[in-house]
């Protein structure tokens, strides 16, 4: 019964799931192009990829949009494509979503309603400022901690359990 209802819902929504059977992605210039195959065959010289669950499933459920931001379809799992296409899509996503990986937190100072962070990243020591810590830090489903600073930069910290004691003590306050 439930399965039938679920099936009915999926059919009613009419979402096009893009797979290696019904489409082909290619690199065109600096961007990705899409060829829809079969009855609905159409070429899109440039498509934009957008993560539907950026924190939970960064390489699954990718919305593919045309130049007018209209959705062409959804990629359920980029790993289902061949290795070359998978790399192309992954590369495009990583370019669009710039997230700096952090290793540890050296200090956090609250001042004038903002918190100033000094952290160690994979590219060395960096500093950034956060406003509204309540909404700027979030613990993802995999335990990693996502941070957004006042400039819109994004950072990821390892899960609390994997952080050193000092970093854990500092970050815990804001989660």
């Amino acid at each position, binding site marked *: 019964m439930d399965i039938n209802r679920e099936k009915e819902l999926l059919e009613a929504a009419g979402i096009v799931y893009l797979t290696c059977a019904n489409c082909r992605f290619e690199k065109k210039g600096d961007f990705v192009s899409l060829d829809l195959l079969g009855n609905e065959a159409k070429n899109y010289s440039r498509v934009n990829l957008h993560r539907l669950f950026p924190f939970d499933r960064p390489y699954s459920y990718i919305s593919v949009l045309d130049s007018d931001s209209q959705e062409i379809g959804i990629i359920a799992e980029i790993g289902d494509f061949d290795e070359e296409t998978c790399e192309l899509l992954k590369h495009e996503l990583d370019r669009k979503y710039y*997230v700096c990986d952090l290793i540890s937190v050296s200090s956090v100072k609250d001042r*004038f*309603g903002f918190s100033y962070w000094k952290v160690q990243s994979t590219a060395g020591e960096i500093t950034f400022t956060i406003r509204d810590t309540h909404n700027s830090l979030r613990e993802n489903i995999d335990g990693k901690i996502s941070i957004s600073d006042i400039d819109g930069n994004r950072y990821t910290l390892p899960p609390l359990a994997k952080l050193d004691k000092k970093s854990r003590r500092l970050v815990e306050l804001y989660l």
Partner: protein
Amino acid sequence: MYSINELISVAVKANVCEDPKNIRIIFPYDLHPDNGIKSVGGVVAATDDKVFVIDDGEIKKSFSLCDVENIMVTNGIGCIFIEAKMKDGSEQVICRGSGSSIKLFKEAGSDLIRLVNGKLKGEIKEYAGGNACPKCGRPLLPGSSSCMRCTGKSSYVKRLLKIAYPWRWMIILSVLLYFVTAVIGLIPPMLNQKLVDDYIQPNVALTLTTSVLIGFVGVIVSMLIVNLINRGVSIIRSLLMIDAGAGIITKLRQMTFDKIQSLSIGRINARTSGELINRVYSDTQTVKNFLVNQIGEMIQMVVTLITVGLILFVYNWKLALLVLCPMPVIVIANRYIMQNLHKYFKLSWVTSSKASSILHDTFSGIRVVKSFGMENKEIGRYKEITDKEREVSIRSESFAGSIMPIISFFLGIGEFFIMFYVGNKIIGGEMTLGEMSKFSAYVGLIYAPLRWISRLPNIISRTGTSLVKIFDILDEENEVEDKPDCVDIDINGEITFDDLSFSYDETNPVLKNLSFTINQGEMIGIVGRSGVGKSTLINLVMRMYDPTFGAVKIDGVDLRDISQSSLRSQIGVVLQETYLFSGTIYDNISYAKAGATKEEVIAAAKLAGAHKFIVKLPDGYNTRVGERGNTLSGGERQRVSIARALLRNPKILILDEATSALDTETEKEVQDVLYKLTRGRTTLAIAHRLSTLRNSDKILVLDKGRLAEFGPHDELMAKKGIYYDLVMAQRQMSKMSRN
């Protein structure tokens, strides 16, 4: 951050051009254009003919400007791109920057667009280094153009004192009275010593003579008088401060409120209403408290610290040292502990606010919770957060509960030294009991300023935060300002869009190259898909924003040359969301025109079709509409808002989805009213239901920000373009819904 000379030097070394003067635009980028995470120190340079992308000192990419059709600045997530669309249809990434480069990329991208269109004027310029302070490189706070660390606290203090200037005598007198309070506070221990040594436990046995009695009573009365003076001084000080405080807070609030009112809609929208309310209320309160209470308190504490310290040292410097020696350590330890305590309390505050937020969510949405049978889920969610709250509360309370007695013990440890030292002196006959009582009282007095000093950083930080936030608003530049030579005009109603392009962020245009003229008295229906720029277009007519390129003209005069008050007093607006202020129906209608007569209000209501329902209300025009007008129906609210728009007898009428929130019958009635009103007035109407635009003289169709079609209904239908398709689609839909 590179200076412009360093950037030019990189470009010249990479052989972009021989003469640096040929470079028109130059800026850095910090992310590799093609590599997901690699950070680079690249440079983009543009001459009049070509754009060059330089990385590692080499030109990695270059293309001719005559091959470029358009330049776009597009947002990634946590990064930003500048892209070029070439005339051959291909697209390429010019450069990519992190979030910190957003401001720089938008400005530079905008100049690249101007360069491509041959509209870039002026010399090469240095772009602001992202959102960082150009002096210290630290990130600037959002909406702030000045860095707190570099601006200098003294400039804020100077400005604050200037605001408080009218109440200077009251403040100075109050500060003097704090000084007096501190000095008076030194007298009771002296009197106490006299009382003990001369009368309670004198060295020689006293006989109760009249003079002894007078002396004894005299000391008691003196103590009473000192206490009375102290209280009297406090009362005068409080009265002075109440007066000065009320004056200062009113002035600060008024200044902040006035400034917010004068800001453009764009600037106001950049902040939440809660944030603005906080600025006007909480931050001004904090600053007032500092000015009227904490400055005086500071004086009192400093005077007490210095005078009591001196007295102690003069009386017995060894004893004074015994008392004061542990204090620096205790003050520092106290500060450290307070910081930790502050963190625990913060944690506790965060969890309780999360718990309150769940309560608010659940109770506000209780119908949804019950409809979906999610009571148990909500109970679980609340239990989870209250468990966390309990855990945090235990941690913070345990810390506070165990550490505070220890602090108090150490703060009072000096008294044990005194007891030991003074006890020995008394036993040895070198000190009297009265002297001991005086000394203990002075030691007690000196603890208060020492404890207060440990709170000082918090006071300064809190006041500084509020001060910066208030001055941030007061210093904010207004995007839409009246020119000094702007004029008041009597509008006839001809509106011209002259090659207008508009973008909210100066890069991604919402409206592109619009050129058309609306004749005086015409009704124009504006149609197009959601997000195509219809509301932006009417906001430009009202001059809520200024065009990025081109101009809007009314009767041939650029809006930027007309005073905003003159312009808006001749435009009437009816929006989809009718906002009625709490007050009466009369208040809401007359809001549009100060000094409107009752006759005018009734006439406007009659024209708007509101009068017929108002007369049926027991309190007529004096009916209170409640918060947001919730005692009226949607149709009634809409009619009141139409009456408000009509009260000014506007030359230009703007209807932004004015009837879309109404049911079909009410919509028809309001439409009929509007039709009568639009005759003879230039009217701009936006509506999704195209049938509501049937009376329009012309239809203006927007598509992707451009003017796609413009003409009478019949002409556009015959053309069978976008408008025809939209009409057909809606007809199809209404047929389906009828079936």
